[in-house]
């Protein structure tokens, strides 16, 4: 009796559902409501309910899946399909714990089969959407036009056509632009698909499709910037001029990557995998990892490469680029999966610092190795002095960067500056480094000066080179680094060499011109004789000096004048008074022309020809 009653109840419930429910969905809904309302109905309806649900879903979904045209091209179908997938996923989830029941179990199998086919189809849709929707960026100066959304078009054939794609030449003027790599509508659709795939446990398939596509896009974007993949050994063996070009390209590429491409990918990941932050993070890292490694690898290769001093400025460029982009880098790669990338970047940053320090070390070696034997004839300015001073001045134009580089290191263990120098100059490690290089240069110049046989020429050489050094240091950043005291001391050096020169060259001549007690103590003829001797000596010494020093050179005009004036200033009066003494001796005056070879004016004239360096001192 009760059974009959229940059966009747069920039949009535079904009848109501069929009559009132205009669609299958509605009918099912009504049945479900009845089930929830009454436990008896639930039992009776459930088996059939399950099958009903499944059948209706099967009908719908199979319809979509078997269609050739992309489902997303018709929004209504698209959302309907997704909705069905949602229901299917929910159903599978609901039925899985009930799998012991044989009826449910067979439905579950069918449902899972249907779900798998839906997922495969969704994967295809996903790929197709990405493929179609992506516009390539013309990063060399143009920007591509947004493709119109074709979803309203009836003609599906045009959907597959990639030819009506027109880049518009609008240059990218600044990096603040975050470019939409895909149109907003497409991104939305992709998100809808991704949501369903993740919910159904197909996150790997979805991620795989996504990552592969985005990786290709990035690779293509970068190759448009002309960036080659280069191994470390290749970079190591490259000609410097070629490497300079590559560095330029790299600087542009890494800026584009970190300021435009990666933020864009991050945004894309976040939107497509909205609600699944782990997946978003992981996919972002996998998409950008390869390119990041390629970019970092190049910087690493530069850091590992030759320490030849000529490379300083380009290596500084690379270093500054890495340093300046580090905040961007850490922001973009702040997720849990990108820790190793961050660490790599920091390691390379440090290596670039080491490389810069290494370049200065190599500069030191270069100076030290410059052979002493290669002295400049005429005691002039040595090429090494010119090279080093100009190099250091150029380097100091990047003073701030270099200070940063050297602050992070241990300063050379020998701080060669004496107490005063240390106190008054910049106490930065860079200042110490510069002072050290000057010390090395000084040693080298000392060694070179000793090659000259004449002490006077040795002094001239040192005078010339230190004069040049002081001049180059004085009006430059370099001067600030080395300090006023350093400059003062080296200026004093120049003066000292001047004094040395004068003493070693001219003291002999001046000695000859000294006529003190001779005339008083000896006889007139004796006095005359010794004066004649002295005159002879003077003539020969003077002649000799002028001959020897005719090829000597003082490059600095002012210094040259100073020297001439000071030599003249001592010699002229001495000679004049000597001549005066001669005139008091009647013996000599009679044949003045014969004995006296040079007038005072002649002497002054000869002196004023000195240090031109072209042998013009010779008559």
């Amino acid at each position, binding site marked *: 009796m009760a059974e009959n009653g229940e059966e009747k109840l069920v039949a009535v419930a079904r009848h109501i559902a069929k009559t009132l429910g205009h669609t299958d969905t509605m009918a099912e809904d009504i049945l479900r409501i009845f089930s929830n309302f009454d436990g008896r109905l639930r039992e009776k309806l459930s088996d059939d309910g399950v099958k009903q649900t499944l059948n209706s879903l099967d009908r719908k979904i199979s319809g979509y899946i078997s269609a050739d045209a992309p489902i997303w091209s018709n929004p209504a179908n698209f959302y309907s399909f997704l909705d069905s997938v949602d229901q299917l996923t929910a159903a599978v989830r609901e039925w899985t714990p009930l*799998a012991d029941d044989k009826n449910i179990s067979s439905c*579950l*199998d069918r449902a*899972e*089969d*249907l*779900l*798998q*086919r839906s*997922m*495969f*189809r969704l994967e*295809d849709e996903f*790929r197709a959407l990405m493929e179609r929707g992506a516009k390539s960026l013309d990063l060399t100066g143009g920007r591509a036009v947004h493709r119109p959304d074709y979803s309203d078009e009836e003609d599906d054939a045009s959907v597959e056509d990639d030819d009506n794609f027109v880049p518009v030449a609008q240059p990218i003027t600044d990096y603040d632009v975050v470019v939409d790599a895909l149109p907003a509508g497409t991104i939305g659709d992709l998100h809808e698909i991704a949501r369903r795939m993740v919910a159904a*446990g197909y996150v*790997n*398939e979805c*991620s*795989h499709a996504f990552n*592969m596509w985005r*990786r*290709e896009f990035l*690779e293509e974007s970068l190759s448009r910037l002309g960036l*080659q*993949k*280069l*191994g*470390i*050994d*290749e970079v*190591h063996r490259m000609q410097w001029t070629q490497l300079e070009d590559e560095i330029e390209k790299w600087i542009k590429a890494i800026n584009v990557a970190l300021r435009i491409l990666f933020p864009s990918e991050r945004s894309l990941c976040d939107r497509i995998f909205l609600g699944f932050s782990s997946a978003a993070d992981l996919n972002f890292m996998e998409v950008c*990892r*390869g*390119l990041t*490694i*390629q970019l970092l*690898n190049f910087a690493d290769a530069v850091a*590992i490469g030759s320490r030849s001093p000529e490379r300083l400025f380009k290596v500084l460029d690379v270093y500054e680029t890495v340093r300046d982009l580090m905040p961007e880098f850490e922001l973009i790669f702040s997720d849990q999966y990108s820790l*190793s990338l961050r660490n*790599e970047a920091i*390691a390379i940053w440090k*290596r670039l610092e*080491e490389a810069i320090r*290494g370049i200065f*070390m*190599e500069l030191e*070696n270069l100076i*030290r190795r410059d052979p002493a034997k290669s002295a400049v004839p005429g005691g002039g300015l040595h090429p090494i002095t010119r090279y080093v001073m100009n190099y250091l001045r150029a380097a100091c134009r990047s003073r701030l960067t270099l200070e940063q580089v050297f602050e992070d290191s241990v300063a050379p*263990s*020998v701080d060669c500056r004496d107490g005063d120098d240390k106190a008054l100059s910049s106490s930065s490690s860079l200042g110490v480094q510069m002072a050290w290089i000057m010390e090395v240069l000084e040693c080298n110049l000392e060694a070179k000066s000793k090659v000259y046989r004449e002490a006077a020429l040795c002094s001239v050489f040192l005078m010339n080179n230190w004069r040049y050094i002081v001049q180059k240091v004085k009006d430059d950043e370099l001067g600030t680094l080395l300090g006023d005291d350093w400059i003062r001391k080296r200026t004093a050096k120049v003066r000292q060499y001047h004094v040395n020169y004068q003493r070693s060259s001219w003291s002999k001549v001046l000695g000859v011109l000294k006529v003190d007690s001779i005339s008083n103590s000896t006889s007139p003829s004796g006095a005359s004789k010794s004066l004649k001797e002295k005159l002879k000596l003077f003539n020969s010494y003077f002649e000799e000096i002028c001959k020897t020093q005719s090829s000597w050179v003082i490059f600095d005009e002012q210094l040259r004048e100073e020297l001439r004036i000071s030599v003249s200033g001592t010699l002229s009066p001495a000679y004049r008074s000597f001549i005066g003494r001669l005139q008091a001796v009647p013996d000599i005056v009679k044949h003045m022309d014969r004995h006296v070879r040079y007038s005072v004016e002649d002497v002054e004239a000869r002196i004023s020809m000195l240090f031109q360096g072209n042998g013009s001192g010779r008559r």
Partner: protein
Amino acid sequence: MPTTDFHEASSSSGFGFSILSRRRDQVHSMESTHEASVQEIEVEAFQKQVADRFQDLIAAESDDWLSISWLRKLLDAFLCCQEEFRAIVLKNKAHLNRPPVERFIADFFDRSVKALDVCNAIRDGIEQIRQWQKQLEIVLCALDNQKTIGEGQFRRAKKALVDLAIGVLDDKEPNTNVAHRNRSFGRSNVQKEQKSLGHFRSLSWSVSRSWSASRQLQAIGGNLVAPRANEHISTHGLSMTVFAMSNVLLFTMWALVAAIPCQDRGLQTQFNATKQFFWAVPILSLHEIILDESKRRDRRHLCGLLKEIIELEKCVRPLNELTDSVHFPLKKDKEVELKQKVEEMGNVYETIRDGLDPLERQVREVFHHIVRSRTECLESLSRPNSHD
């Protein structure tokens, strides 16, 4: 498994050892410590370290060879040897700045730079293996935790298995065509298949497309000849030290290339050391073993000799064949067979999942150590002795 008792080797007229022992006798008989003998003891100790370390690697379980854990031991051994080598270089600056050892050591540091590219390529190769994890997860998810395997799950696993099979095989092999055929599901077209393949192949970010691991190895081993007897003595054994370290470098890189997928994996590199040198014996034995392994018919089509890759292929191939031949609904015995293979696959998956990250970190460590060591040694050698 070859037995190598280096005590035996040393007591025979092994070249390197006997000269050193003769010299040492001489020195002892002089009853004074000469600086040269300190050096030679150092050099000898280094060679013994090399011999010991690589002997340990041979002594490992034979089924552990070229596994992830074995590779990590190899890298450990390399780091130890290089660390000791670095110390010797820093201490013997004066001797090393003279010909002919000056050139040997400059060559060594050039070889080191080439090795860096190998390290980078290996990192890319590890990433390639890591990508398989996703496919493995799909297969395990689809087939592992079900009571019975449904057709949908089956299809899902099948697709992932085909991808895996393609990934694990060397792209030069004709077997990949077979895998291609099975790939057509639903709307797959040729372009898409090629893109899949391309995915597994275009993971080399660190080296150019024309780069070749085989050529790089040849370059690392290029002009690597044993020092002559008189050179050995005149350089106080340092030229032998450089030669030994160069061989350690070459072998380590070679073994990595043998194990891990990378561009143009050729293993024909020459090793010019001979078993006359006691330290070379274990290295050359390992070389022979791995080379033999690579020539086995069933190994030749693999993209790498890593034990885990071999094991993976052992699961993937039969699974592919099984899933190809089977019809739904599954017969009970087929299902059991399937599940068993899936379980084995699960084990390999876990080893890969847990082992790749530490392996990659270690490869990076080796990279960094090579760079640091090289920079430090070159800087030291270029500075005059007066600086502290």
